């Protein structure tokens, strides 16, 4: 099984230096790309069927194609790597950035070439101190080696790269809020259209992609689209995917696997099954802002289409497992508290609705709940449906809640009737 993204990451946790990266074929993709036209690079990425790894699965090549490319296109254009990764249960980008920062940098340079960007930023989660140090060193090395700056690798292409460490808000991961944060403004999202490809950072054409998305790019260019497509088990998109499992499983971790492995394979094989004494009850398949899936969904292939069909989203592909010894109400409360706190405060449903939701869940969990509050919770899930709020944070926050109300209604009612948490 091929693992192009992670195969060179060292087991001892130390970082791959530029020399080491080059020794295993690093920057070959870039050199090839620079010999192609930007249009050809973009076409290859389109043909590879790479879909964004930031959660929404938007086809990457298509996203790039909206950037104005004519002679009158505004400049500077920007390219931004989204490494905010504040989604609870998600830690895949960290593995990539800490283990092999040059792979990200190379992916960004190639992408920048494809859209003819001038300036690039790596936007990193505030808490990733080690990753930040390593990226800093890697950017420096890349400049020294002529992969960044003027006349990259002997070509006419030039690119600046900067590291930006975030202040630590979940909202900063939403791509337009990220751009505002980069501009030094409040991390409120922007309405779309206009899309960042047209009016992004500082009002200029901008591409934001997830860290993992960029990590795929050098391999696509280096080894070709056919090879890349074949990595995937799913017709849904090319490549491998970093999957993770957390919760009371035997071996919580991250693995690079063909796109489209089943949830069962992830939990039972790779994570080693449930810890002794714990039974599987449900799982959030793609981070905190996805709907619960239950036993009946275990054989669902973890790709964008199939998880959607099962009533959830693949999101970031990092599974959080709920077991029979953990209170589902408590789990949802924990998540909603997080979302309420991370609301940017821009739109009413999220700003006001999430704290209310969290307060109600807190009351229920602590035995102070009332039956009519279940109606309020159901109302909130409709009130904060996609489109009703300004950005996807609140609808995402409603996903675990609406599915919990569907699958665990009895547990909610028991809390209220018994005036306590049955798991206490």
């Amino acid at each position, binding site marked *: 099984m091929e693992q192009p993204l992670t195969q060179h990451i060292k087991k001892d946790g130390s970082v791959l230096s530029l020399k080491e990266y080059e020794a295993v074929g690093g920057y070959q993709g870039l050199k090839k790309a620079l010999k192609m036209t930007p249009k050809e690079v973009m076409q290859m990425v389109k043909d590879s069927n790479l879909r964004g790894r930031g959660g929404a699965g938007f086809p990457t090549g298509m996203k790039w194609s909206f950037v104005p490319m004519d002679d009158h296109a505004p400049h500077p254009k920007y390219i931004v790597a989204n490494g905010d990764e504040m989604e609870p249960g998600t830690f895949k980008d960290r593995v990539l950035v800490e283990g092999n920062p040059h792979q990200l940098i190379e992916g960004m340079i190639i992408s920048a070439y494809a859209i003819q960007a001038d300036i690039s930023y790596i936007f990193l989660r505030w808490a990733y101190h080690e990753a930040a140090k390593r990226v800093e060193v890697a950017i420096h090395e890349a400049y020294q080696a002529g992969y960044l700056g003027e006349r990259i690798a002997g070509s006419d292409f030039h690119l600046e790269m900067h590291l930006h460490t975030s202040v630590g*808000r979940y*909202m900063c991961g939403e791509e337009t809020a990220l751009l505002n944060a980069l501009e030094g403004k*409040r991390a409120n999202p*922007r*309405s779309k*259209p*206009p899309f960042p490809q*047209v*009016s992004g950072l*500082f*009002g200029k054409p901008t591409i934001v992609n997830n860290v993992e998305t960029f990590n795929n790019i050098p391999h696509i260019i280096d080894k070709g689209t056919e090879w890349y497509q074949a990595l995937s088990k799913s017709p849904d998109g090319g490549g491998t995917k970093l999957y993770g499992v957390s919760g009371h499983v035997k071996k919580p971790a991250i693995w690079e696997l063909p796109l489209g492995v089943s949830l069962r394979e992830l939990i039972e094989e790779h994570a080693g099954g449930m810890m002794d004494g714990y039974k599987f009850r449900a799982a959030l398949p793609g981070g905190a802002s996805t709907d619960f899936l239950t036993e009946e969904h275990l054989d669902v292939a973890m790709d964008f289409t199939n998880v959607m069909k099962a009533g959830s989203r693949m999101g970031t592909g990092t599974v959080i497992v709920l077991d029979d010894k953990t209170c589902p109400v408590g789990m949802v409360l924990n998540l909603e508290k997080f979302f*309420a*706190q*991370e*609301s*940017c*405060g*821009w*739109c*009413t*449903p999220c*700003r*006001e*609705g*999430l*704290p*209310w939701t969290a*307060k109600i869940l807190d*009351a229920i969990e602590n035995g102070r709940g*009332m039956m*009519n509050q279940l109606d*309020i919770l159901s*109302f909130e899930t409709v*009130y904060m*449906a996609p*489109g*009703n*709020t*300004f950005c996807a944070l609140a609808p995402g926050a409603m996903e675990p809640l609406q599915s919990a109300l569907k699958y665990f209604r009895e547990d909610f009612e028991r809390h209220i009737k018994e005036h306590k948490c049955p798991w206490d």
Partner: protein
Amino acid sequence: MPLGLIMAKIFVDNIEYEVPDGKNLLEVCLSLGFNLTYFCWHPAMHSVGACRQCGVINFKDENDKRGRLVMSCMQAATNGTRISIEDPRARAFRAGNIEALMLNHPHDCPVCDEGGECHLQDMTVMSGHNYRRNTFKKRTHYNQYLGPFINHEMNRCIQCYRCVRFYNDYAGGKDLAVFAAHDDVYFGRQEEGVLENEFSGNLVEVCPTGVFTDKVLRKHYTRKWDLTSAPSVCHQCSLGCNILTSERYGGIRRILTRYNGDVNGYFICDRGRFGYEYTNSDQRIKQPSKNTDNSSQPLSTEDALHDVKDSIFSKKNIIGIGSPRASLESNFMLKELVGENNFYGGIPKRESDLVHRVISILHQGKVKTPSLKEVESYDAILILGEDVTNTAPMLALAVRQAAKNQPREKAYALRIPQWDDAAVRESVQGQTGPVYLLTTHHTKLDEIATKAEYAAPDDIAITGFEIVQQITRLSQSANGDESSQSFTASVARDLLKAKKPLIISGTSLYNTAIIQAAANIAYSLKDNGKDAGLVYAVPEVNSMGMSMLEQKNLDDAIGRAKEGGVDAVIIAENDLYFRVDRDIANDFLKNCHHVLVLENLQNETTTKADYILPAGTFAESTGTVVNNEGRAQRFYQVYKPSNEMRSSWDWLNEIRNSISGVHAENFDAVVDEMIKKYPELAKVKSVAPDANFRKGTQKIPRETARYSGRTAMLANINVSEPKPPVDKDSPLSFTMEGYQGVPPSPDVPFFWSPGWNSVQSINRYQTEVGGALHGGNPGVRLLEPSNENKSGYFNQSTEKFSRREGEWLVIPFYHIYGSDELSVKGPALAERIPPVYIAMNGKDLEKGNLKDGDHIEITFNQNKLSISVKSENTLPEGIAGLPKGFKETTGIEFPFWGRIRKV
């Protein structure tokens, strides 16, 4: 393609409407008269999609039965747009949104200043939400002290973000922001303190809740529905912003913006909003009186008229001194009373000449002066010598909007709709189009200027004439001085590149050459095919109107009196000590022998009067004033005072009656007389409907239908309800009964519509949101340019400024709070007046061995002034700046040469 030209068919709840294609959907719905709720959208600041209160169901086509919820403020109305406002899902969503907004709202309407005029109350009722399901504690905030104008009560905030959008994005403020996140967001200053922006008072109207409220109103609070209000015109500068002035119990309680789509739009400045307190001052003159050096004897109106006839009109040479702060009608009646040859305008020659020059340029020149609102449509601006933020504040706000035009074109080219405010701003990145300033020293608009240069007044004029030469050069040779980076070359280039270049200047530096240079620049742009505009700020509310009636000025009167040609003088609403040096005023009044003064407030002139008659301020008078644009506008008496205060023209009419038996029946009769005599003022007749105008048989009430306490208000004095006073001068009544619909636009005393109790009801008075009021915007322009350009180009006759050894040319510095005669007499505004100072270039200070804060003595003519110095390094050396109109500087005639000595 400009919006609004092509029509689109849209369907609202299955009914078809024709609307301008591409317009904002919420705006369109409001223009069509729908009751659709909203908070964050504002007609002048457009959409950001934050509050989510305007949700409607949008259907793809007639086959789409499900549709999806969208925010109407974030959609364009285009052909085939199908929405439902009434869909139960949309209704439930909007009610749910109110429920969410109310979770933390204190529900303190009974003690909230906003209550009864609150957009949140209105929207709550409109949404149908009423039952509270929340059982948890509310979050609370600390409130801040924000200065004398604005009260802060953050707990009432519904986080619509309008305040910061207005204050920062629209008005250029820097000291109000949003802090924190999630349900803890806080709108305030970084620390407590005075809100600095000149337009902060608009927060009172922009904020849909009781967070930002009028602190001056709070000092004498009354419920909004209990106010008696009249359409009025701000008297605090020459722009003539439209206002609503409101009274209860014989005192003015507050001022609100009166929307005028041609003048001030939705906003006014803080001087205009909070500068009315002088009307309630204990210095008000309320009773006629007879005065000697050491006694004052109150008179009844009858006795006063009798005495005035006997002791003033028995004299032979009686002259009248008019005033730029008195109405056209008052100036006219005075002129009638004393005769054409004996009427003198109330300002010194220098100022008079300037205003006459402005009038002749606007009338005989070939360039149009735009309305205040139209200023916002120009795409390149040059300001010559005027500190507009302080001399004509709302003009500065208009310039700030105009400065956004050029960069915004780029956003529109990306197909970002004009109403998508956040996206437009993101694309524009705070850039401003060409705005050039040529002033004597640093002014606030410098912050948006492409380039600001500083020069002595004469040098400003000279540079102005050079710009004309540059324009000619550039336009004659295709590759003229294209590369020159000089100020004049850049200005000329950018003015020529613009579609609509605008030149702004004014009278504030008392420099005719500057005014002429500004005209020449505008003429040359026009000659180069540009749709150029020319705006002058003039000193006072009716400077233009008075000058239209004035043939002789105050200096002429002073000269005549000195030669013994005056036996008595009648002064209407004019403190001569504000106009000329003390000694001159003293001598003049002595030389006039007998003095009759009609005045609002006690001042130095009234202390010298033999007879004083209580003249109403704008609040107790009806009249017409002409603003800097030449727009004649009507203001109406707000209430009938219980004392003898009345319009000056009314007094003068009574005096005329008592001496000659000629009596104008009412205000309209005065106007008729006036236009008969001065046909050039004929249009004044059509400024507003006359007094016998009726809607059906009904007058227009000054009180809302919700007015309360009418029978009880005066019951402590007399239990039987008094008959409401009659207003013979206007179609307005002093009661709550009368026509309840939308009155003619000049006669709107308040904005109210069923379900819309806040100022947002303005939507219902407009032909379309943000457009003209029903029946056209109020005001009639008296001056239009002539096609022949009778005045021609002016010759340059100015010499370069050269400094004098040991002397300084002292020029006036203006302050929005401090330089206006009457507004400074109110306590709230007075708090904002800076301490007096004299500004000089740091190098001059060094040479004189002076540092900031040192005391100096300045001597000029026969006067001495002791004052502390302040360095202002943008001011050219050899020039000093002294605040105009301050207590310490009142009556000083600028500019003057003075000697400065350290003390």
